Every structure is written in structure tokens, then in C-alpha cells.
């Protein structure tokens, strides 16, 4: 009787130690699910979801606080990917969160007064300039988040849709007209 008790207590202590060691040794920093969600998000850092960047939104989704249909730059495909990842149903975009065609910001350099407000707003440091110097957008780094548009006091920033060029042209999905037979 006593020996059985001791065996059980010994086993419990041993397993407890092993688990305790494993909890420290194999500790995972941060939330791995949030990382996975963040990898799916388009990283525009635009805040249209209501969170200050893609990472906070990913964390909110991981905690179950946010819906998966709040990211217009990711498009419907982004919602599908999130739905697949999280094993939930697809949810269409709401009324006021519709995806727009991709665009990059453009500064009208004639009008720019060099106030640096847009530089402070840009989440990816894609604007070059200094106080009282003309600013300009590094188009290849711009995510099209539109965060620089509102702070501009002289309204010199516009969003220019990315044009289709030979270099970024894509083959289209084959479509063929139906022909009437008799």
C-alpha cells in the first residue's frame, strides 16, 4: 500500500519535473498563430482594419477579438487564406471595407512645402525628404496605405493606380464567347 503510494508520488514528481523543464526549455516566444496570420496579411500597414498595423491585427485575430474580413488590401483572396488558416467560414467584406485597385502615393513636388508630416506618417519609411526640402515617394517601397494623404497640409499627395505595363502584364484567364448553334 505504502509502496504504491510512494511510486505514484515519485512518478508525479518526476513527470512534473520533466514538464517544468520542457516548459522552460521549449518555450515559444510570442504567439505562433499570430505570426502565421501576419505572414498572410499584405503588410500595407494601412490601419484600415482599425488596428495600428498588420501585426496588431494578426494578434487580434489570433486572440479571437477581430474578424477576418477587415483587410481590404488583402482582397477576397486574403480572407480565403485566413479562413483556410483558421478553419473558419469565409466572410465577405463589409459595406465600408471594399478593396481598391493597387496604387502608389505621388507627391506633387511643385506644391510640397517640405513640412515632413507625411514622412512621419509613412509606416514603411518610403518618403525621402527633410524639413523645408522637397519630399518624394520611393515608389518601389510604397505599399499604397494612404496614411500620408490625410496629414498633408497642402493636399499635394495623390494616390495613383498602378498602370498595367508590359513589365507587369499578366496572362488573362481564358474566356471564349458562346456561339449560337441553330
Amino acid at each position, binding site marked *: 500500500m505504502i509502496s504504491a503510494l510512494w511510486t505514484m508520488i515519485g512518478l508525479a514528481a518526476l513527470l512534473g519535473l520533466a514538464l517544468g523543464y520542457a516548459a522552460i526549455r521549449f518555450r515559444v516566444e510570442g504567439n505562433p498563430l499570430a505570426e502565421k496570420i501576419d505572414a498572410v496579411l499584405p503588410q500595407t*500597414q494601412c490601419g484600415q482594419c482599425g488596428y495600428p498595423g498588420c501585426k496588431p491585427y494578426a494578434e487580434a485575430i489570433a486572440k479571437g477579438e477581430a474578424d477576418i474580413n477587415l483587410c481590404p488590401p488583402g482582397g477576397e483572396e486574403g480572407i480565403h487564406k485566413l479562413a483556410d488558416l483558421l478553419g473558419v467560414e469565409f466572410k465577405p467584406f463589409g459595406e465600408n471595407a471594399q478593396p481598391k485597385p493597387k496604387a502608389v502615393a505621388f507627391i506633387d513636388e511643385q506644391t510640397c512645402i517640405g513640412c515632413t508630416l507625411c514622412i512621419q506618417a509613412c509606416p514603411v519609411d518610403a518618403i525621402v525628404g527633410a524639413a523645408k526640402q522637397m519630399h518624394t515617394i520611393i515608389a518601389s*517601397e510604397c505599399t499604397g496605405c494612404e496614411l500620408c494623404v490625410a496629414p498633408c497640409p497642402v493636399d499635394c499627395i495623390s494616390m495613383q493606380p498602378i498602370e498595367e505595363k508590359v513589365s507587369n502584364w*499578366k496572362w488573362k484567364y481564358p474566356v471564349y464567347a458562346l456561339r449560337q448553334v441553330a
Partner: protein
Amino acid sequence: MSPLFSFHGGIHPPAHKDESTQSPIVPAPLPAKLVIPFRQHAGEMAKPVVQAGERVLKGQLIGEPVGAVSSAVHAPTSGTITAIDLQRIAHPSALPDLCATLVPDGRDEWTERTPLNYRQLSADQLQQHLRRCGVVGLGGATFPSDLKLRHARPVDTLILNGAECEPYITCDDMLMRERADAIVRGAEILRYALATDTVLIGIEDNKPQAITAMQRAVDESGHPFKVVVVPTIYPGGSAKHLIKVLTGLEVPSGKLPTDIGVQCYNVATAYAVQRAVEHGEPLIGRVVTVTGNVEQPRNYEALLGTPFSELVALSIVRRDTNRYIMGGPMMGVELPAVDVPLVKASNCVIAASDALFPLPPPPMPCIRCTRCAQACPVELQPQDLYWFAQSHNFGKAQEYDLFDCIECGACAYVCPSSIPLVQYYRYAKSEIRARDQEKRAADLARTRHEYRQFRLEREKQEKAERLAQKERAAAAAKAAAVPATPVDPSADANDTQQLRINEALARAKAQAAAAAPKNTGNLTPQQQAEIEAIEARRAHIRELAADAGADDEPPKTSRGN
């Protein structure tokens, strides 16, 4: 004679090659206007180095290569550049691209050409020369030829591709018939640059005259090259398939031929290499087949930038022609308009009519008959790829090796349901490429955003530290200044600090007195009077100040009080 090998699949479409091989290559007349696109090769677009209004000579560089994968563009004749702008080009998108418009002056005046002796050049110098001369693969892929000379491991076999497997196209056939010597010399230059032992020239057995001409040229040159006759099958002219047929080696998925010790060049590219090295002539023209629904199908040697409309007009287009195809009927692209210019990739232009190329019947559902899989020369499962592409399941399509597809069209050719399979594969490929690019952009944005967060945090910390330091310094100074306050500053004139301050004040006063006012010449009497009035007021104020504060003359003693 070493044995030949074969590859899986392939088809035997009607060749239609005899029509355009009845007459020799005809030089095309100089057109009234040339339009030269700056993107005529795989990779980065060339950067224009001329301006509108500039006069250029034949062979003068007008676009220089940018980046690793790029090539140069030259003026095909002498004349004036009238514009550098967006123009329609031979591209399936029908979108405009950057082009130079050249109006020839008719003199065809060459720029300076420097013929080189390839034996005195290193492989590296030859690469540089080919890049400068804008030599690219003329089989249709237009990959810069200089890059194909680079190889990580030794290359022991050079293959010259004269298979020309696609129906209707005969430009390589005619070039081999008429300019075999130059092709063999070009092959020798490439062999030298690659330092290979074996050179195999693969020609399909439906070109007996080209085979004879090449064999004679090889015999006369004395080089130990081998002309190998390969069976006619489509797509036997694809580089990877010709390598398989001639050597039995298969280029692994995602690898280059040089990884298995083989390199392959088109015969027309070898010819361009010979012109570039032994004559110093950049690539400014090519042989192009004009065939299909025309009265006189034949090959023309035309300058790059010649509008296709002028070329087809030379062969007299039949009236029911309603569209034009650049390249062959299997892999070619429909031209957005017939006035687009000839480019380095244009091996053939086919005038097409509904009678010659009847529109395919409407596609029917896939019945999974797997005839496409039997025809596929890359041993893919086209029916599965189609299924994944049409349902936008790109991950799965990639798993089934979509990117090994060479878009030869053999699957679509045999499909009993006439499904445009290649269009689906092209769609899936370009979607996957676009997504990869988006993913890269997102990763870049994430890194930049994270770095920015880090930087803001760091700046905040630094600012807080600076403030704390300032506060500490202020507190220390206050503590140090407490005993100094009760001492009368004027009594302490011996103090060195006070002395220094007095000296500095004296210096400043002397400087102010010595400084002559500027802009005082050419003054009207009225201005002079105003200035004098101001000076008088100033003097008065100074006197007042001196009277009021005579005893505290040194205005500041120490910052502490």
C-alpha cells in the same frame, strides 16, 4: 556515329516549310521609318542613351544594358532619332512599350567597327563584347547570349540548334543553306569561349539542303564538329529536348543545361556571334520568314524595327487575311496590329485567315482521356494542370511542376475537346509569378515597418536619456553654483573666468566698432539723413543704458544665478 535518343511524347503537325524555301533570302528594302523597342530581350529593358533629334550612325549604341540580365540595342541604320516614346510592340498584351523612332537618311553609314580575333580574347572579354553588341538567343527566347557563356562547372558539349521544329518557320533552314560557313565560324567562337571539346550541330531530317550545306562547311573548316541529323518531331527544337536527343542527358527540373555540362545555341545566334566578333557588327537585323496567306512566301533579311506591314506587303498579302501571328502557329503570339516593329525574337510572321487557320470549335469539357499526357514532351500531366489552373488552385499546379511546362502546345493540339490548355498554363504561371512578387513586396514592407518601429523606439529612448542627462547636469550645476552667489562679482575681478568674460566683451566691442556698414554707397541724401537719425537714436539709447546700469556693467556673471 553515336546513337540518338528520343523523348516522351511529341507530335507531327503538317510542316508547311516548302512554301517559304523556294527562293533565297531577300534583303528587305530600307523602310521609311524604323521603330526600335528598348525591350527586345529577356531581362531588364535597355536604357536609352540617345535623345530625340540626335543623328545616329548604323550600329551606334542607342540603349545600354542595365543590370545583370540585359542586353544592348543599336541603331539599325544611319538617320535621325525623331522620338523616344511609348509605341505598340509585338507583345500579346497589345500594350505600348518604350521605343526609339528612327528616320533613316538613306546613306546607311556605319559607325566605327572593330573586327576582333577571338583567339586573342579571354572568355570574359568575349562575354563583354557580346553584351555590348546586343547578341541574344535568336531562336525566340532572346536570352542574352553572353550570360549563356557563364558556367559554374566545365561544359564539355556545345550543341548548335538547327532543328527548327515549328511548322511554317524556315529562317534557320535558309540561313544554314546560304551562310553555313559563317555559322560554323560562330560555332567555333562559342566553342572557344566555352572551352568545350565536342560540338554537335543538330538538324531535323526535313532539311536535307541545310544538312548538306552545313556538312560541307564543317568539312571545309577542318573543325571536328559533327552534323547530326535528328528525326523530325515537334518540339524537337526545344533546347532541352535537342540535348536529350543528341546526348541522352536530361536537364533536371529547375536546372540549366550547363549544370549537366552542355550548352545549346541556335544557329542564327552563332551567325550573330560571328558577325559581332569577326566583323564588329552589333545585332541590328535578322532573317525572318514571311509566310502563310501570302502570294510569295519567303525569307527576308530585315533590319530590326522594320514594321511587319512593310514585310508582309513585299510578299503580297491575300485579301482574306484577317490577322497576323509572330512566331509559329504552335507557340506564336497574335500581333496586336500589323504595323508593330520586327524585333530580335521575330523569326517568322504568318499571315492568317479563317480558311488557313480555322477558328477552333468551342471548348468542350475535359473527359480525362489523357491524350495530352501522352503528347506532353516534358512528361507532365496536362489534364491535372488544366484542372488546377482553371480552378485557380495555383499551389497544387506548382506541385505538379507547372513551371517545367515549355508551353509548346502539343497538349492543346491533340485535345479532342479543343481546350486552350496553354492559355490556362500561361494564366496560372503569370498569376503565380505576380503572387511571388507580392509576397516579396509584403516581406520587404514588413521588414521596413519593423525597422521603423525599432528606430522610433530607439529615438524615444535616446531623447529620454538626453533629457535625463540634461536634468542631472542642471542639478549638478545648481549645486555647484550655490556657494558662488553671495560673492560680489565686481570684487572678484581677479577671477580668471571673469577676466576671460571681460576680454571677450572687449573683443566684441572692438569688432563691432571695426565693422563697416555694408550697402552704404550710392545713397540718396534722404536715405543718408534717415540713417543719421537712426544712428543718433541708437547713441542716445546707449547713453541711457550706460547711465542706468553703470554699476552692473558686466551683464552676466555666471549662468547659475
